C-alpha cells in the first residue's frame, strides 16, 4: 500500500470511527434498537477478533501456513488464560516467536 493510500485509510477510518461514536452519543442517544439487532451487533467483536487472531496466526497474504507465530499465540493463549496483563501477553508472544525463529 502506498504512503498516500495509507494516509487516506487513516483519514477515512478516523472520520468513520468518530461518526459512529457521535451518531450513537449525540444523535441517537438513549434510544434502543430492536433486540435482535442489539444481540447481533454485540457479537461483532467476538467474530472479528477471533478471525483476526486466526488470520495473524495461520496466514501470510493468501497462504495458510504454520510458522513461528503459532508458538507465540499458544504462549499468549496460556497467558490470557492465567489472566496476565495485556503487555505480558504481547511480550511473551513476541519472545516465544523470536526464540522459535532463532532456533529454526
Amino acid at each position, binding site marked *: 500500500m502506498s504512503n498516500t493510500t495509507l494516509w487516506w485509510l487513516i483519514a477515512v477510518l478516523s472520520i468513520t470511527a468518530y461518526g459512529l461514536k457521535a451518531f450513537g*452519543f449525540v444523535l441517537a*442517544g438513549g434510544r434502543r434498537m430492536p433486540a435482535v439487532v442489539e444481540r447481533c*451487533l454485540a457479537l461483532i467483536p467476538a467474530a472479528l477478533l477471533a*478471525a483476526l487472531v486466526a*488470520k495473524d496466526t495461520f496466514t501470510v497474504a493468501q497462504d495458510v501456513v504454520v510458522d513461528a507465530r503459532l508458538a507465540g499465540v499458544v504462549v499468549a493463549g496460556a497467558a490470557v488464560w492465567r489472566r496476565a496483563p495485556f503487555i505480558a501477553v504481547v511480550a511473551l508472544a513476541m519472545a516465544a*516467536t523470536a526464540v522459535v525463529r532463532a532456533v529454526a
Partner: protein
Amino acid sequence: MIDDDSAQPESTAPEAADRRRVVSASVTLGVAVGVTALSFGLAAVSAGASVWQACVLSFFTFTGASQFSAMSVVGAGGSAVAAFGGAALLAVRNFVYGLALAGRVSVDDDGRRLSLGRRLIAAHFVIDETTAMTTTQLNPRLARTAFWVTALSLFITWNLGTLVGALAGSVLDTQALGFDAAFPAAFLAMLPPHLRTRQGRFAALTGAVVCVALTPFVPVGVAILVAVVGVLFGVRP
C-alpha cells in the same frame, strides 16, 4: 429524546472518598492502556506505517481494536478497502456504547444538557474503557467523573504510548524480535470479555474458521469481513 436514566434520582453529591476511588481506578486503567498503546505503536510500524501515521491514527481514530485491525490487514498486504471494512465493523460497537452513555454523560451535575460542542467532544471518547468505567458507577455524578477521568487519562496515555512504541519499532529489527506475533496476541488478549456467552463463543469460533478457510480464495483482508457472519448466532436469543 428517551433517556433510560432520567428516572434515576439525581442523587446527592458522592462522598469525597468515593470520588477519589473512582478517579484512582480511572487513572490506573489509563496507565494500563498506555502500555497497550506501546504495543500498538510497535505493531503499526512493523506493519509498514510511519511513526507519524501511527500517531495520527491513535489521535483521531482513538479506538484500539479498529486501529490494530486496520494495521493488521495493511501489514498482510491487503487493500485499503479491506483494511477499512474490518476496522469500521469493529467500530460499530462504539455506536452502541454511544447509545448507552448518552443519558449518563450528556448532562451536567445540575441535570442540564451539555452544549452541543461539549457533547461532540465527549463523543470522541466513547470507547470500551470509558463505557465500562461509566456504566459500573450507579451514582450519576460518579459516573460522569469516571467518564471524563478515564477519557482524559486514556487519551494521554494512548497517544504517548503509541509515539514511544512507534519510535522503538522504527529502530528495531521487528521481524527477528517477533513483533508480528504482537498482532494475534493483542487480539487474543482483547477477546475474553466477548466469550462469556455461548453465542459469543460460537461467533468467535465461526469467525476464526471462516477467516482461515476463505483466505486462499479471496483478496487479503476480505476473509475478515466475511467472518462477521458469526454474528448471526445472535439472531435467536
